[in-house]
């Protein structure tokens, strides 16, 4: 395949997480990058998914419509992207099945890019999920969807300001009209190929005691699993006594994740902060 000609060693190939992804039920044949689609319910995730893939997954105007994980793909700039539509959730911190699926996929599947679809008319509530996802992954794009409705309700959303505050690119879209989709695709590819580096915002307003505890524990976790992108979040889950996370630490499953894609991988060296 064409990847042979590129000077990319096998173990740094973006499809390196094959084993994890296959375990999560993702067919990993012939894809260069895996893109996850997360977001609150009824923010138009499935519509974004359809615009990106050209598929016709059923969309509906009610929350909780996507009950199974949908997959599709698209080709951009000679690279093949696999898109995985996760169930819509308001948070990643509670116990419902949907949230578990989304959380497990982001953590253990380690998608190359996570697109977080946010409703521009309900930004504050949507940001709750955005911030949680940014704790888990360091490569994300916020798709600020339903911009048409925001305009209709006379909201002005400053997407540049938002991108600066969140530390990840923001692509404003109106997916139902196909507006902004080309920009979204380009942004996804820039993050996937490392042309744009993300410095995701981490939550800052915790009480001091909690902040200190997370810091201490995260330092230990980072020492044990160098390269793990979400030590803070793992620390938080351990403090909460999350059984799944305790098991991942005990069995060393976390180690696989931390070794999978070192931050200084050749393909991502051109860190052009925009």
């Amino acid at each position, binding site marked *: 395949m064409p990847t042979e000609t590129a000077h990319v060693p096998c173990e740094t190939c973006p499809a390196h997480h094959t084993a994890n992804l296959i375990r999560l039920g993702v067919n990993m044949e012939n894809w260069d990058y895996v893109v996850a689609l997360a977001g609150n319910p*009824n923010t138009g995730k499935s519509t974004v998914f359809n615009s990106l893939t050209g598929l*016709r*997954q*059923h*969309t*509906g*105007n*009610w*929350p*909780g419509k996507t*009950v*199974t994980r949908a997959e599709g793909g698209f080709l951009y700039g000679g690279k093949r992207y696999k898109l995985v539509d996760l169930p819509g959730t308001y*948070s990643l*911190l509670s116990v*419902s*099945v949907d949230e578990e699926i989304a959380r497990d996929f982001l953590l253990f599947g380690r998608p190359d890019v996570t697109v977080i679809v946010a409703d521009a*008319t309900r*930004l*504050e*509530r949507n*940001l*709750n999920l*955005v*911030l949680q996802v940014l704790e888990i992954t360091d490569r994300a794009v916020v798709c600020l969807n339903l911009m048409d*409705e925001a305009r209709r*309700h*006379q*909201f*002005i*959303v*400053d*997407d540049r*300001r*938002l991108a600066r*505050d*969140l530390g990840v690119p923001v692509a404003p879209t109106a997916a*139902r009209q196909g507006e902004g989709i080309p920009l979204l695709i380009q942004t996804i590819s820039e993050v996937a190929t490392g042309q744009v580096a993300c410095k995701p*915002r981490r*939550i*800052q*307003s*915790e009480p001091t*005691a*909690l902040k200190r*505890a997370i810091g*201490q*524990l995260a330092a*230990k*976790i980072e*020492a*044990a699993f160098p390269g793990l992108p979400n030590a803070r979040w793992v*620390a*938080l889950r*351990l*403090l*909460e*006594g999350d059984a799944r996370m*305790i098991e991942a*630490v*005990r069995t060393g499953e976390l180690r696989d994740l931390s070794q999978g894609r070192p931050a200084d991988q050749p393909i991502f060296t051109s860190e052009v902060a925009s």
Partner: protein
Amino acid sequence: MTSKPSPDEILSSAATLRWEVGANLHDAVMEAIYTDASQIADRAVARSGQRPRFDLDRAIDRLVTSRWTGFPIMILMLTVVFWLTIAGANVPSGMIANLLVDTFHPALKGLAASVGMPWWLDGLLIDGMYLAMAWVMAVMLPPMAIFFPMFTLLEDFGYLPRVAFNLDKLFKKAGAHGKQALTMSMGYGCNAAGIVATRVIDSPRERLIAIITNNFAICNGRWPTQILIATIFIGALASPHLAGLVSAGAVVGVVLLGVILTFVVSWGLSHTLLRGEASAFSMELPPYRPPRILRTIYTSLIDRTLYVLWRAVVFAVPAGAVIWLVSNIHVGGVSLAEHTINWLNPFGLLLGLNGVILLAYIIAIPANEIVIPTVLMLTVLSARLAGIGAGAGVMFEFDSEAATAEVLKTGGWTLLTGINLMLFSLIHNPCSTTIYTIWKETLSVKWTTVASLLPLIMGFVACFLVAQVWRLIAGG
């Protein structure tokens, strides 16, 4: 360099720190997230101008979720959708039947004869399997092609969550989940689809209730039975210019009975086998969005209509073979079908039905849509009506309702048989596709059995009671 902390070290350190941060960790984290989110949102969002004077969304919401107008609007909307489906499906149904049954079927028979196919193979393949498939296509495709896009348009527009909102209180009183309103609505298209849709319900207890009661939503395959029997037996009671309205009313009555049964059985289950509190149901009412009509029609045709149709065809083909076989295998000079009908007849009559109907429901387990053709075929067979139909074990449907009525009345049908058939069509076991879907969704033999047999037993009891009361009053 310090050595790497071992997993146990990390876990014990986590356990120690957990004591230091205290018990309200989760709340503290959520609060921190909310604070950050609100700060960021404040900086990024501004409002221009003043609020639009008239908020259309809110005005519509006030109307469709109002205590007084909500339910009438809901019933009206559903009636319009059903009426359009019923009225609109007639013509294309006839056209497909004309093509597949009246044109292709004789052509195929001719072809088979010209290549010298043995009569039994020709009968099994063409009269059995091909005709079953043709009938399912003719009866199912047009209503689905009308019903699913209309339903999807309502969904796309944002009406369904309002229906759920309206029904939520009733479902909660029954100890079930408000989202069951959505899955019930899906059931009016196809119970298997409705059962898959119950995945939106998180609590396993409430999901099981939704799965078990989904059968009380009349699916596509049962609409033709309801409409035809209502027209023949109930519409005929009224004067001709009212007949249409009266038979439509009878069908709506059966639908409402199904809704009532859904509540009653939900209540019963949540107070016996599936005891528990109804979980709180928070679903935001999404904004109304202008539906994208062409896209919706396209996706609902591809995703739902063809998918469901394919499944029905797959199940109907073997059923067609069975019908032909039981009608053509003779034991002691009498076909298997007649043996069975005679054997089932006493029980059927006790229920105000008859042996033909019971056998038809056994044969039609794979797909409800073949009930009426099977009933007619078996009636002709058992009553030995000369000069009607197309031979033993050949499914057919009469062009006019008058001809159908003639056959049924000659077969000993009364008004009671008609009413009880409508009841039994509402309350009986789910089709095999649905049973299989229930098993796949619950992975439990026990609950699949309950979901299959509970409605069947209820149907027997309901028909029996109606028959007894009827005979008491009518003295027959």
